[in-house]
Every structure is written in C-alpha cells, then in structure tokens.
C-alpha cells in the first residue's frame, strides 16, 4: 500500500498572454507567498520544481528561481526540466520514502520572451528532428490528421473542443479570456489558430502532505489514489499517432475509472479527443471545466495546473473523484495521470 498523500493546496497566477514586464521570479514569487500563507507553512520537507532553460534562455534557470522560496539554510530540493507535474511525481515518490511529510511543488514559464515554437524545436531529437526545424504545431498537425483519418472526426469536432474550452476559460479568473473560435484560416493545416493553445506566461504551486499532516492543513484533502506516467518512443514515425498508448496505460495503472472531472493537458484540440479515448472518459465526465490549456498554457506549469484544478474540485466539495493529466514531448509522447479522491484515506 502506498503511503496516503494528498494535494492540500493549490495556487496559480492570473496567467498572461503577453509580457507584463515581470521577470520569471517576479511571476513566481507571489504564488509561493500565497501557498505558504494558505498552508501556514514556512518550510517544507522537500521542494521540487519544473521549468525549462530554453524558455528562459539561460542555463540552470531554475537555480535563480529558488530565491523565491528561500533556499537558505540549505533545503532539500530537486528540479525536473519538464512540466512540474513530473516534479509532483518526484515529490510523491519522496513522500513514499516516509522521511518527510510535506512537499512544495512549483512550475513556471515565461513563453512570451522568445519564439516558443522555435524553442520547443530544441527539445526534439537533435539528430533527425531538430535539424529539420520542425516546430511543435507542425508536429501536432501531423497527429491531428492521423487521428482524423483514423477516427472520422472532422474539423468541426475540433472546433467544438475549442469553443467549449474557451467558454469555460472565460469563467475562470486565472485563464486568458479568449473569444469564440472563428475563421477558416489554418495555422498549420489541419489545425486552425484556435486549435492551438495560446502562448501564456504564468506559474503555479501545489503543496503535498502525507497522512495526518494533510488532514491538519486541509479540510478536504485531495488524496492521490493512483499516479503513473508512461512514455513512448520519441520518434513520431514509429508510433501510431492516432492513439495514445502511453496515456491509456498510465490511466489503467492509476485506476482512472469513475472519474467525475478530468483536467487534461491537451495543448491542441485533437489531443483532447485522443486523450478522452485513451483514458476511457465518457460523456458523464466533465473535461477541462477550467478551460484547460486551450485557455491558458503556461509552459512547465500547465500540467501541474491540471492536477491543481482537479484537486480544487475535491477541496471545494464539488466532486469526489477527479483526474489530472499532464503531457510532455512531441505528439503526446509522455503522459502522466494522477487520480485524486475526496474519500478518507489513511
């Protein structure tokens, strides 16, 4: 039996679609301050963050961000060069060791200060993909066509995902407020501009706690009943792009059944449809009531935000069994599924 660990607090920025003149650390610091106040904690047993040096344009960019949490006296700390959802996984594993009871997890990204598409190209295989200069949207469009040709889904089905996400996002004070999707122009066909998540600056933080510490810090902790992440080959040409096997397996391992609310890290409209299918989410599951990444997509935080948004439904009592999902790599290469429950555990 894993040790019972719960999401006890979640904080995020009011995300921005443009540079507001703040440095990364200035975007992050208020979120850390907020979550410390909310949990009454000044220090945590472990701290883990997710960020990307290529976004900041500086090596070891996460080191300077540590100033936001107060790194002296020396703290126990780690970092993933990925979405902070994977930092949460690392913190969960650390909590399973049993020598700590609390962990702070955060992620941040300021996409507006560079060319995000070109930045993401640098994360690709440096032998066969990056030298071609292929960008993230072009890769996603390859997957969109493979999915549409296999499933029979049409561009209107994709547009409906965008419309629903944007409408939900306009009701979320932290998301960008985007208009109804319109226009026939393609970005990279078959994707229209509204099929693509907006460039977003922002940050988010989550506090995890184990057992009684969780009950002390939160009236209704969101207990992690299952968490798993899987990866597929990096090369898109060896995968069936129309499906997400790694999401399917991660969902099965995490026990993703009976889900009331699912927050999916779908950065393109077709990804939501592929993920719904892989995770077996039916009509009775509310998907991305926050608006999802199509309404706000701060890189390296958007996956963590999915877990936070899902947990928030448990915290406020509006749902008792939820799912947070994160993805990384080209065409949904890696997928993480975190199932959370309001039922008393431990």
């Amino acid at each position, binding site marked *: 039996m894993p040790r019972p660990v719960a999401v006890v607090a979640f904080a995020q920025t009011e995300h921005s679609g443009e540079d507001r003149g703040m440095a990364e650390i200035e975007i992050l610091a208020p979120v850390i301050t907020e979550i410390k106040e909310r949990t009454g904690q000044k220090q945590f047993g472990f701290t883990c963050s997710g960020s990307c040096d290529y976004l900041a344009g500086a090596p070891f960019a996460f080191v300077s961000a540590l100033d936001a949490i107060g790194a002296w006296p020396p703290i126990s700390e780690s970092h993933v060069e990925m979405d902070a959802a994977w930092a949460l996984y690392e913190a969960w594993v650390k909590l399973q060791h049993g020598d700590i009871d609390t962990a702070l997890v955060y992620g941040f990204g300021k996409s507006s200060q560079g060319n995000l598409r070109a930045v993401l190209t640098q994360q690709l295989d440096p032998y*066969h993909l990056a030298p*071609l*200069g292929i960008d993230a949207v072009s890769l996603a469009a390859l997957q969109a066509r493979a999915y549409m040709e296999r499933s029979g889904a049409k561009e209107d089905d994709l547009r409906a995902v965008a419309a629903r996400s944007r409408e939900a996002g306009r009701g979320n004070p932290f998301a960008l407020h985007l208009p109804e999707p319109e226009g026939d122009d393609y970005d990279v066909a078959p994707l229209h501009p509204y099929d693509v998540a907006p460039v977003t600056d922002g940050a988010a933080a989550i506090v995890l706690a184990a057992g009684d510490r969780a009950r002390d810090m939160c009236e209704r902790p969101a207990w992690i009943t299952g968490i798993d992440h899987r990866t597929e080959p990096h090369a898109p040409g060896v995968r069936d792009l129309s499906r997400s096997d790694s999401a399917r397996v991660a969902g099965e391992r995490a026990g993703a059944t009976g889900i009331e609310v699912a927050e999916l890290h779908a950065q393109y409209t077709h990804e939501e449809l592929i993920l719904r299918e892989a995770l077996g989410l039916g009509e009775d599951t509310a998907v991305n009531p926050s608006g999802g990444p199509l309404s706000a997509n701060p890189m390296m935080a958007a996956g963590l935000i999915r877990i936070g948004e899902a947990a928030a439904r448990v915290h406020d009592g509006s749902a008792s069994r939820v799912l947070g999902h994160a993805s990384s790599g080209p065409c949904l290469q890696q997928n993480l599924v975190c199932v959370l429950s309001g039922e008393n555990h431990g």
Partner: protein
Amino acid sequence: MPSDTAPAGADTGLPEPNHVLEFPGGYTRSVGPVIGRFFSELRDGRLVGVRTADGRVLVPPSEYDPLTGEDVTGEFVEVGPVGTVTTWSWVARPAKEHPLDRPFAWALIRPDGADTALLHALDLGVFDEGAKPPKFLKTGMRVRPRWRAERTGGIGDIECFQPEVTMINAPTRLEYRLKGGQALRRFLEGMSEGRILGHRCPVCESVIVPMKGLCPRDGVPTTEEVELPDTGTVTTFAVNNIPDPRAPEVPFVSAYVLLDGAGLTMLTLVAGIPADQVRMGMRVKAAWRPREEWERTMGNIKWFEPVDEPDVPFEEIKDFM
C-alpha cells in the same frame, strides 16, 4: 483580469526590453555506430534502416527496438528511397526556421522496405504564400527524396521529398497557315468597318452569322448579305475559372449570344457584370474597341456588355440553345 490588459503596442508604461539574449550555435555530438551509419549512407545518397531481432526494419535507425527496448541486430538494410506518406501537415506560411521558404508539407514517410516512418519536408511545387494544400497531397501518396548536391552526413542531406513522377507534359508546336475562305473574308472585312455581316438563307430565310456561304440547316449556298445590329440576347453561358490570354481576369464568362435578327448564336465573351449575375435571356450589346484599333478581326469586339432592357423570356430563345 487577464483579458483586461492593454493590447500589444499600447503605452503600458513598461520599459522596452533592454537586453536581447541569444542562443547561438549548437552542440557537437557523437552519433555512435547506428546513427553514424545512417548519416554516412545518407551522405552517399542512400537511405538505410536497421533490422530488429524480430525482423522489422527501423528508419531512421535507432540503437534499440522501440517496442522491446532490446538491442537491434546491427544488420543495415537499404530501403526506399521511394516511400509512402502516412500523415502530413501543411505549412502555408513558413517560419524562418523551416527548411523551405515557400508553402510545403511536413510528412511522415515510410520508405519501401521499412516498418517505421521518417519525418521530413515535402515540396509540392507550390509558390504562393498562404496557398492551400494541393488536392493531390494525400495520405498514401508516393514520394522520393531530393538529394542535396553537397552532402555532409546529416538529415539535411535530403533537401526534401517530392512526389513520384506520375505525369509529364509533352509540349508540341505545329504551325499552319490558314485562309478563312470567301465568306469569312467578307465577314472580317465587315468587322474592319464596324459592321456585323450575315447571309440570309434562300430557303429558311434565317440569317447566318458569321456566314459560311452555306445554310447548315438546308445545305444550300447563301449569298444575300444582311447587316445585323450589335445587340442581342444571351442564350447560354459558362463561367470559366481557368485563365485564358483572350479573356479578362478570372472568372470570365463565355456565352452564346443571339444577335437581334440572327438565326444562329455566336460564341463571345460577356463582361461588365459580375460573373455570378450573368443569366439566360440577358440583353447585351457589343463593346467595340476604339476605331483606330480596328483590324480585320473578330477581336474588334472586346466582349458583350449588359444593357438596361428587360430579359427575353426563355420561350423566345429556347430554340437557339
């Protein structure tokens, strides 16, 4: 609220960025024996894959079987270079990082003899920025690499892929010297004077224009000249979307016009009205070129233009379709 922030370019009171950070150059990387072999073969203009323990061929080759994680066999197999597109996306407006500076497709291409696909750019000979993908671009399309003349051992040794040749254009040009015959000579003489001449048939009495010296209905010679007005009625028409050197801009309308008093229709252009407003029964009048440009040619009439008269009922033109 995020939506309440000032639009880009507005005076936000924020200082302009004073520091542009660059990430120049790149890294020097060892490629190892598997990728190294692939790149060495590319430099020689060959495409190879590597065989897995269960006999599949991976292209591009990797050191391990993506399904099992086991080492590959080390047996390299020449594949393609022709391959099949398994999926594609269309870039109508290339970014500066992209390999082509005009619209192109990204495609996953499975070379013949391979079990996996290679990602590359696909050049379909489209030049207009913002153009839509050509209709013949489809999953399943057969393509082959265009090799760079100067190759260095890298994925860029293939400049891009191109469709297999499935059609050729075989240009042909023959010259002929034509004489129009007596009737046509008279007709063009009339045109050079701004007159439209026809022949009246001695049997059916209908006026044939342009005249041929014969009545096509009765098969008898015709000689009686009649001058017709340059007004008439559109009997039927076609909207053409393919450019033609003789026509105004696309779309243009070619129409059969029944000149007033004529017994046969003439093929001509109709202009001066949006193509989608041309209709059967519409009244038209010839638009002549300036008199000083007149020659012995039908081209003295640029086209026919609508005149402000009621349409002719279908009943009256139905026999002239």
